[in-house]
């Protein structure tokens, strides 16, 4: 009897009550995240460079000297934060920002703006997708290093490192958004490469800080990727003498600066689109 009543009520609600949404769980944000992920992983060039390139670099430059030590820890362990930051930096800059330049170029954003979609849904879907792609690429890289190089940080440390990488990724997601709004679709990927590759070298991600040329060592302490890297190195006991809090402040500061820049270029773009 009880179930009979409730079934009738459900049918009445689904047929007659048009003031209720069509089905229960219809989060626009969740589905927008799904679409962003599909858009990203269906570009094979990007997926390959994000998953294969770091593994290739690791095989070529780290595996031969995997049993040596660096900053008091095994080289294999030392390179986990270095390459990890490189991976999430690539994912952060390229997955959100560069497609935005394309979407601006083809006025897709104009059509979205004519729908009830919230602006925060648009940005949140891109940032969440970037974090997920970054986490997936870093995890893949860790497994690769574990299998090919026998690198073992222990499950708790792997997870802590992954969490640290995702925090350290935030300024680079913001940088991607900044580039996406500042530069046109043709130039965006080139500009991003011009920034990411030198930044990785200068920050000691590929060559340890102590082995960097003199000028790079002068500049590194002012670069976001250097401080992002230090967050990871501190975690595995290979950090510098500066405290983690200071590195965190640098990462937070760069995030704010890039977000402010992204907002400035976003407004400039709005003026052009809607002016």
């Amino acid at each position, binding site marked *: 009897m009880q179930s009979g009543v409730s079934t009738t009520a459900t049918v009445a609600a689904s047929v007659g009550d*048009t*003031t209720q*949404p*069509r089905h229960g769980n*219809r*989060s*626009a944000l969740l*589905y*927008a995240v*799904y*679409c962003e992920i*599909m*858009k990203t992983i*269906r*570009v094979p060039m990007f997926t390959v460079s994000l998953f294969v390139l770091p593994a290739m670099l690791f095989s070529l430059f780290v595996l031969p000297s995997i049993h040596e030590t660096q900053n008091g820890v095994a080289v294999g362990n030392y390179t986990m934060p270095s390459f990890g930051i490189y991976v999430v930096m690539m994912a952060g800059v390229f997955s959100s920002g560069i497609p935005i330049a394309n*979407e601006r*170029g*083809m*006025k*897709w954003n*104009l*059509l979205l*703006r*004519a*729908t*009830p*979609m919230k602006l925060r849904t648009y940005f949140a879907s891109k940032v969440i997708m970037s974090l997920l792609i970054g986490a997936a690429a870093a995890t893949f890289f860790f497994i690769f290093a574990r299998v090919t190089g026998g690198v073992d940080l222990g499950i708790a440390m792997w997870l802590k490192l992954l969490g640290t990488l995702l925090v350290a990724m935030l300024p680079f997601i913001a940088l991607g958004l900044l580039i996406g709004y500042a530069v046109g679709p043709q130039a965006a990927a080139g500009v991003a490469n011009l920034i990411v590759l030198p930044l990785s070298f200068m920050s000691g991600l590929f060559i340890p800080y102590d082995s960097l040329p003199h000028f790079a060592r002068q500049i590194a302490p002012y670069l976001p990727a250097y401080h992002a890297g230090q967050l990871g190195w501190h975690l595995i006991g290979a950090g510098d003498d500066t405290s983690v809090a200071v590195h965190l402040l640098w990462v937070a500061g760069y995030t704010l600066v890039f977000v402010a820049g992204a907002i400035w270029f976003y407004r400039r773009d709005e003026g052009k689109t*809607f*002016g």
Partner: protein
Amino acid sequence: MSDSPQTLPVSLEHASKRYGATTVVDDFSFEARPGETVALLGPNGAGKTTSISMMLGLKHMTSGQARIFDHMPTSTEARVRTGIMLQESGLPATLKVREIVELFSRFYPHPISNAEAIEAAMLTDKTERRIADLSGGERQRLYFALAIIGEPDLLFLDEPTVGMDVTARGIFWDRIRQMHARGKTIVLTTHYLEEADALADRIVVMNKGVQVAEGTPAEIKATVMGKVVRFHTPSVNAATLRALPGVEEATLTDHTVELFTRTPEITVKALLNGPTIVQDLEVGGGTLEDAFVRLTA
């Protein structure tokens, strides 16, 4: 949906859009009443798309005001009741038809089913296709599916049949008529008089940023659809030409005469019975472009 009977689905009051010294739209006012299909007709560059963009809050106005169901066009109240097909808005090439329709359906509180929207756009056999693999006409129909998925009360269709062949256009017109029959208010832009005639209750003709005519399709056609009688002559008097029956306008350049008339048979008969020497006589349909120029003059 507690509109009072006076609530207009869309209104634009004294809208102007200037870029520096260039005026794209000049003091243009427009409204559509509930359930009405209105066509904005004009040649390329007439200001149709700019006008629609201002109605939708997608372009800032230099001056004027736009309302949708008596709300700001950019408000959520307006957006959830409005469906839009924009020219050349582009879609993410790697998404599938099914995915983008589902994404749009989630933006609206009371969408129709995805299957219904996809069927109305005649894409039922293309749901698993990536957008990159659609033809121009299919993509245009996908825009239509996205425009109607939210069960809007008001539809904006900017040049909806661009890129469609004659058959597809005819079928698409039927879909628009179905929307009309379901009580939707529709604003469409087109540069085909035929399309405006086939779909609209009322036509607003624009050229060079201003309204040049407004009326039922029959009224507009009567104004626009004349014939041009063209011939060469060694000598003629312009006053004689204008006096011919049916002639509304006469131009004379280098011994070539052009007469605009809505009764070409009567005009030509009188011309040949008269004293004027007529060589190389042609009677042709006036183009819509000619008509816009005449309406503006």
